């Protein structure tokens, strides 16, 4: 009987088309729509802060160079993940991430909590030539980042576009984006204090690439790496234990 119904359906291009759309729509709607409406999908935390203009610029460099192809930013709820990298990632930690950079492959280690683990100097050395600090590494060198000046003229546009998609940057932040980028990488300057006023006391001020006289792409990328996992402390307060290993450990 089903054969004859289908025989009829096969005779109509329009009918067949609509049937395909109907069958294919259900799964996506059921799984995606509730993520916007169920409240506890993304936790609410008080101390969540925004990326500064310099960190956002660094994030865009991270995207541009395809770092996500080898480094995940998602610590799973597994014992070995948590012991190796730190508390497992919460949804709220990527609440302002357009796009998210959870990744799908670890050719290099996870970076979700890399911020603050190493010095700025270590990161600069690592990006200039990974094998200088990790002899076994197969990561490419990114030495041109130190000599390429950061284009700050587009920072206001970038912050404004981020606001359009839902990140709560204020007019003040957008207007001063370029100045704030300089201020964050020049901790002794007058502009530096304004950065902390706008983005919070927790903002890391540093001459990231070791040179305060100019603002390079290296400054931006290191500033971004150093903020990873430090936008909120919520994950450290989360007391839920990691899920047990699904099979007995082999010791």
């Amino acid at each position, binding site marked *: 009987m089903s054969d004859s119904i289908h025989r009829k359906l096969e005779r109509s291009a329009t009918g067949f088309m609509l049937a395909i759309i109907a069958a294919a729509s259900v*799964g996506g709607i059921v799984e995606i729509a509730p*993520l916007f409406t169920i409240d506890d999908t993304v936790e609410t935390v008080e101390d969540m802060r925004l990326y500064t203009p310099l960190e956002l610029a660094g994030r865009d460099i991270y995207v*541009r*160079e395809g770092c996500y192809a080898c480094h995940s930013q998602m610590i799973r709820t597994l*014992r070995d993940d948590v012991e190796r990298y730190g508390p497992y990632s919460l949804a709220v930690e990527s609440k302002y991430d*357009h796009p998210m950079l959870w990744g799908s492959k670890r050719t290099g280690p996870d970076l979700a909590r890399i911020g603050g683990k190493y010095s700025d100097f270590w990161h600069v050395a690592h990006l200039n030539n990974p094998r200088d600090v990790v002899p076994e590494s197969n*990561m490419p060198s*990114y030495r041109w980042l130190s000599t390429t000046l950061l284009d700050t003229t587009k920072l206001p546009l970038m912050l404004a576009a981020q606001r359009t998609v*839902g990140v709560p940057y204020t007019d003040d932040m957008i207007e001063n984006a370029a100045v704030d980028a300089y201020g964050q990488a020049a901790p002794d300057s007058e502009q530096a204090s304004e950065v902390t006023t706008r983005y919070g006391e927790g903002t890391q001020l540093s001459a990231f690439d070791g040179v305060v006289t100019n603002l390079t792409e290296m400054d931006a990328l290191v500033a971004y790496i150093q903020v990873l996992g430090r936008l909120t402390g919520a994950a450290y307060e989360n007391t839920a234990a990691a899920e047990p290993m699904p099979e007995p450990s082999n010791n």
Partner: protein
Amino acid sequence: MRQLTTGERDLAAGVLIVLAVIGVAMAAVGRNEPFGIHGLIVLIYSGCLLALLMSGAFSPAPDPSRFSKYYDDPIKIGVGLTLFWAIFGMFVGVWAAAQLAWPALNFDTAWSSFGRIRPAHTSGVIFGFGGNALITTSFHVVQRTSRARLADQFSPWFVLFGFNLFCLLAISGYFLGVTQSKEYAEAEWYADIWLVIVWIVYFVLYVRTLARRKEPHIYVANWYYLAFILVVAILHIVNNLAVPISVTDAKSYTVWAGVQDAMVQWWYGHNAVAFFLTAGFLAMLYYYLPIRAQRPIFSYRLSILSFWGITFFYMWAGSHHLHYTALPHWVQNLGMTFSVMLLVPSWASAGNALLTLNGAWHKVRDDATLRFMMMAAFFYGLSTFEGSFLAIRPVNSLSHYTDWTVGHVHAGALGWVALITFGALYTLVPAIWKLDRMYSAALVEIHFWLALIGTLIYVFAMWNSGIIQGLMWRTYSEDSALTYSFVDTLVAMYPYYIARAFGGLLFLIGAVIAAYNVWMTVRHAGTATAASSEDFPIVDGVKTHATPAE
């Protein structure tokens, strides 16, 4: 293009001029930035096509007898483009694989570092090779199974060249650092919008051709092509919704954030596997395998079951990419459940294909082309089984983030997608150029073994490295401390990375041989023997030729 009428030539010229103007505008506002370079590419691309069009502008009006033949000119160009992108995409893949073993192979340049050439490889093979193969074969199949000529003469060219412009913009963009980082959807907003326009034209052309069919029923292969065109459009539009920082800049930010973005991304990512890399290629399987084996499809009911099963179940499966992450547990479970259920329709298709060969196994032994298709069906069954297996949460806890996933993908990409494509091409090329067979059967045979051995080396290397890496990450010493550092696991991978590059190289050499064989076949097409007496559309009212058996 000699079959275009004056009106169609004018339309083509108009479209190309508009495109050239857009190119000039992009180049002007983008100056030396990637956006401007892309403007220049658009300008040069449309300029070249315009020159080509003009060279034939005053040729005589096309012969009305063309309507009694199928419109195969775009298919011929499509075969060439498919093979070009195959070699390009696979070459970049081998290069990227080699960089993982020898990082100095980027020669200290930004444009060729791993993070930039990796998407050039994936887009090159998925969209360049796979996409062109899908468009080309769909033009071939829809005409033959509908016994009707393509509905239009201009739009097939628009679809083919428009799609290749998208590929060019996307892939050149990655080398320049233009990417939105969404895996398998890295192209930026303007390339995405262009693809939507091309895709709408493709859809209209396809449905109009189907509507002109002289067969009462829509043949199975067309179900799959239709699903591929429709669902890829939905996926592409939803996943790529983004806000550019300005209309004169390549950079944009996706409208989705965090956990929702992750879900949308893998809903797209996994269904690109389902509807780009599976549905479209199953369409090839359902047309070219029965033709080559000269056997009807084993079971009509299995065809129905697997088609609707795949169309319905796959759309739920994407969340299995996000096990143990911050994605809510209930979505992970739905994804896992449907991924396991997917095995039923997938194996229904693979089984249907292999059972179709019953009674034709002697042909499989003698005919390497048919063997390409048989191995493709076998790898399809293997990699869908593996996919369902890897989607189970506890298994995924070991395999995720490791090379096991890469191995799984390539069992599908090399063993299934590429093998079925080459099988289809080796059937299509002689048919389109009205020849009895390819230039060299021996070269097809050599290609088959290179492809098979290359795939096996690749997949076994990645299975080994992935499982070893996953196990090393979770190994604890007697005092409950992690035994291995991350670097220890990386060092253990090196021999497998070298093996992988070697397997990929064998596969690439096979593709080069295929291109040579096709080239030589086409060169000999001048001395064509005779066209098949059945290879004609049914022209209105006059049923002069026999109808093909379903």
